[in-house]
């Protein structure tokens, strides 16, 4: 099995422009920044949520709280994956009660990660509302979950993989569609 790059979906500049737009959309559709908070899903949702918050700060002057959630303990496939994956801490230093939360992740695929993230958030309190913001929606949902804020929608086959490279984690910055070929 080899992995080959099929095409680039977003360049660094396009990622930056998409995040600008998403930040504006989030504030616009929320009617301001009151009670608003972002929660990045480990790992790549974390830098994305921080960049969104910085953009909001730049155009509105408001610091919206940003947290990090680790979904490991909420996964539904733990009994099938062999050795247990390493657990990381959540870093949510604000009360989620009555918050207007936006979960931030890089790719929306089956929806299972987002289900896990919502379960994790409910263990911390009772948010007023939870919405979802993703950089890429690649389809193939296995749960009734949709994003409120979408950077790009991409048609994919189920053997393909959407790889998001972010400079904070990967060193480079781009989104590529790769395929597994036998």
């Amino acid at each position: 099995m080899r992995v080959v790059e099929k095409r680039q979906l977003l360049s660094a500049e396009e990622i930056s422009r998409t995040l600008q737009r998403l930040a504006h959309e989030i504030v616009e559709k929320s009617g301001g920044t009151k009670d608003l908070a972002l929660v990045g899903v480990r790992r790549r949702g974390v830098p994305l949520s921080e960049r969104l918050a910085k953009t909001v700060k730049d155009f509105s002057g408001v610091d919206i709280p940003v947290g990090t959630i680790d979904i490991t303990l909420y996964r539904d496939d733990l009994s099938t994956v062999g050795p247990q994956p390493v657990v990381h801490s959540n870093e949510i230093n604000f009360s989620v009660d009555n918050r207007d939360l936006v979960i931030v992740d890089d790719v929306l695929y089956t929806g299972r990660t987002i289900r896990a993230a919502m379960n994790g958030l409910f263990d911390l309190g009772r948010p007023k509302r939870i919405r979802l913001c993703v950089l890429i929606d690649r389809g193939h949902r296995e749960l009734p979950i949709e994003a409120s804020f979408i950077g790009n929608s991409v048609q994919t086959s189920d053997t393909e993989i959407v790889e998001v490279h972010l400079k904070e984690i990967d060193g480079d910055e781009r989104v590529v569609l790769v395929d597994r070929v036998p």
Partner: protein
Amino acid sequence: MLQRLEHLLGIEDLTREQISFILDQAKPFQEFQRHPLKKLATLRGKTVALAFFENSTRTRISFATAAARLGADTMNLQAEASSLKKGESLLDTVRTLEAMRPDGIVIRHSSSGAPEFVADRLGVPIVNAGDGTHEHPTQALLDALTIRDRKGHLEGSNLTILGDVLHSRVARSNIHLLSKFGVRTTLCGPAMWVPRELETLAPNVRRVTRIEEALEGADVIIALRVQTERLHEPALAAEEYILRYQLTPRRLQLARPGALVLHPGPMIRGLEIDDAVADGPQSCVLEQVTNGLAIRMALLYHLVGGAAVEPPPPGKTP
């Protein structure tokens, strides 16, 4: 690459990397103890057998709570109710437990080596919750987590252990664990409880007779519980122990400023430890209890979770 743990039988055979991994994995579970809703479904459908062949309240409740918070069910076997009293062998008792298909067994036993004996014969992850005078690995791990949190690191500290070291599995596990991190250990207590052989347990272990000398330069002090049944005339009267070895505020001043005071519990106030020390700012006893939950949750998550082992084919059930 970290060697995957199958059981937790003791600290002695663990590498420093394995210990650090367990301590790191306890961090998210420490944070979890502050959640308003303390219930995960991570180990839902798994069963943890708690086989306590020796009395225990604190450790048993800690393991039971850790399992419950991970969503696992528990089966309880306690010494008073067990068939051991009726003459059943340890192996038969645990085989009966195994036949109920638990996903892990936590075992405490008065005989050193009992958890290993069981681990060699059953195909279930075993956690040692204290065996004879051998080891109490989860206590040492929670102590290390407590020290690391307060000091920021374990390396290079001076540890003093006070009391009945000879009969203490807590002391043995702590010495094994901390010596792997370069901690220098001083043992202090009545000579009959601190025999020379203990110096060979691990590198950098020494014995000191006078408590004043033992406390000088200490960064961490572990006061062991003194079993009152071991204090009697003429060998050693309780009054004499208090006079010579009790950890008092005055003696604590001989240690490094801000030295930590740990106690595995249950504490006997007025015997091995003075009230003012037990309740003072240097005391970590309640953090130890909370950290015990985090350590045990991390261990159960890694040992009991994961892919289910294929059940043996029909007709081959042992």
